């Protein structure tokens, strides 16, 4: 059973500030972490390997320091790690990112399952997982909250919905995006941390994966960010007085213009 887990290094959401001059995320001095959903994807991959055997490869597209999250994944049980890193990837949107990851997956080789977090907590698009599945031409299920059954040929899953969940069966190869209800990620082990420290991270450049320069980075991204700005703080306070019915009437009247 060969599993690939796509992970991303993101700024710690507990520590996010906007640069007041540029209105972009202030990354200076902000701690980087593994995207929290991805921790659950790594955990599920390791559990499936413990159950069915095989190997878990973690894959990330990012700057050289994204190696940190790949090592973290190894300390939590992943077998090997691949970093796709090239200046040419800078500015990639979800379209270009899913193209790049698909190219990298093809270089890694045969696989049964690809796991992704539901979304990254910086961009919050939830598009890269499904986009990658389309590029790889494999079926996918988003928002997986539980793996009910796992065999060498496929899975029975629960997909989280607004009003409950769906039960789905699918055959490999396939891609899943996962939510946090799926499992409780393990604490890294001492032996895992030592292995992570020594592990060799395979580096792939744009040339290594045979990427078309027109399809990667900013040139390959149809999304153009025109302006980033924090919403203006507009707060008015209103105190409603009188008996309860009067107060409700006033509240309804005051909400009316916004409906």
């Amino acid at each position, binding site marked *: 059973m060969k599993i690939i887990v796509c992970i991303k290094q993101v700024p710690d959401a507990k520590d996010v500030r906007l640069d007041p001059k540029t209105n972009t995320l202030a990354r200076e001095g902000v701690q980087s972490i593994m995207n929290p959903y991805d921790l659950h994807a790594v955990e599920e991959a390791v559990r499936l390997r413990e159950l069915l055997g095989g190997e878990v490869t973690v894959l990330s597209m990012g700057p050289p320091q994204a190696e940190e999250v790949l090592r973290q994944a190894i300390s939590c049980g992943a077998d090997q790690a691949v970093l796709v890193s090239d200046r040419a990837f800078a500015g990639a949107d979800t379209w270009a990112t899913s193209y790049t990851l698909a190219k990298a997956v093809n270089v890694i080789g045969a696989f049964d399952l690809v796991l992704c977090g539901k979304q990254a907590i910086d961009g919050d698009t939830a598009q890269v997982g499904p986009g990658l599945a389309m590029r790889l031409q494999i079926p996918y299920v988003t928002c997986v909250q539980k793996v009910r059954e796992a065999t060498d040929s496929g899975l029975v899953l629960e997909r989280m919905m607004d009003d409950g969940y769906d039960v789905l069966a699918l055959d490999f190869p396939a891609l899943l995006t996962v939510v946090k209800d799926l499992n409780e990620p*393990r*604490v*890294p*082990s*001492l*032996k*895992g*941390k*030592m292995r992570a*420290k020594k592990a060799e991270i395979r580096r792939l450049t744009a040339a290594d994966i045979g990427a078309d320069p027109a399809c990667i980075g900013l040139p390959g991204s149809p999304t153009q960010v025109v302006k980033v700005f924090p919403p203006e703080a507009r707060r008015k306070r209103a105190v409603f007085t009188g008996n309860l019915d009067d107060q409700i009437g006033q509240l309804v009247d005051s909400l009316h213009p916004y409906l």
Partner: protein
Amino acid sequence: MDYFLTEEQEMIVGIARQITDERIIPQRAELDENDAFPRAILNEMARADLFGIPIPEEFGGFGGGCFDIVLALEQLGRGCIGVGTAFAASSLGIYPLLIAGSREMCEKYLPDVASGKKFAAFGLTEANAGSDASGIQTTAVLDGDEWVLNGTKQWITNGGEAQIYTIVAITDRSKGARGASMLVVEEGDPGFSCGPKEKKMGIRSSSTTELIFKDCRIPKDRLIGRKGTGFITVMKTLDSSRPGIAALGLGLAQGALDEAATYAKQRVQFGKPIIAFQAVQHMLADMAIQLEAARALVYGAARHIDAHPKDISKVSSMCKVFATDMAMKVATDAVQVMGGYGYMREYPVEKMMRDAKILQIYEGTNQIQRNVVGQELNKEYGRA
């Protein structure tokens, strides 16, 4: 203060800290309330390889020293010394094997303890043998190829939860201190049972029971080391384990100081946060000073022990006394700083104060530790 830890030591601290923050702290109040053994947390610690720290690499462990285990226990103690005690007692249970066990015994027992598949426990104390270990009544008599054990051990940590017990029994009463031996008893051995869980003031998540031997028969090869060396092994075991108890005290005190200082910054009386009042500041300052002094002593003692000097009794006892008396004081003062809130079960310092008391009692009372230090001084100055 920076104690210049190695990269591997930083890893141990990081793992133990994560388990403490993510697993122990959210559950400690409930475990305490229900006297519940922290099986799931210990399993997580096992998966993270923490049980392997004191076990040599050849037996599936990490091959760490006293300082490594101290660092892990300090973190765990910050969360809950009940959980920390359950963890530490498994190490305590295998020290006799590390100190005096044959290679075959180590091969048989240590890998499963290193992986956390099995827990260990150490059985010395009896109703009439506490500080005076020579009062041991439990006997082991050789009958053919088997030892026959009779007697009852009392207040044994991990009783009923462990699978491997290292116990002390008298094999030849006429020889006094040289008539005691250590043996391994396994869960399920005929004639061996554990009593009900004791009801304790603190560390309620740890399991404490009697070990009852009624014509308990075990194979001859369960003897640890040579016959009659039991007391020496016990003393060496306790010398090795005491810095770990001191480390639990460091962690507990750190947790109590964290709670008290955070509270003192938030609590407003007479128009100011109470940390602005000198009476409170001085209490917090004394807590921090005592804690850092204890940490320096415990770390220093652990590093000294890791250099394998001939005799470690004195430093081992010194650091246990100082750090655990400090922990009791700091926990009590944390309750005082927090006033009525501190006394309520809603806040963690109430439990910390109840828990801290055991640190001054178990693994040799602090009075016995002072005896050890005093006797060592008597020897040192007698040589002049």
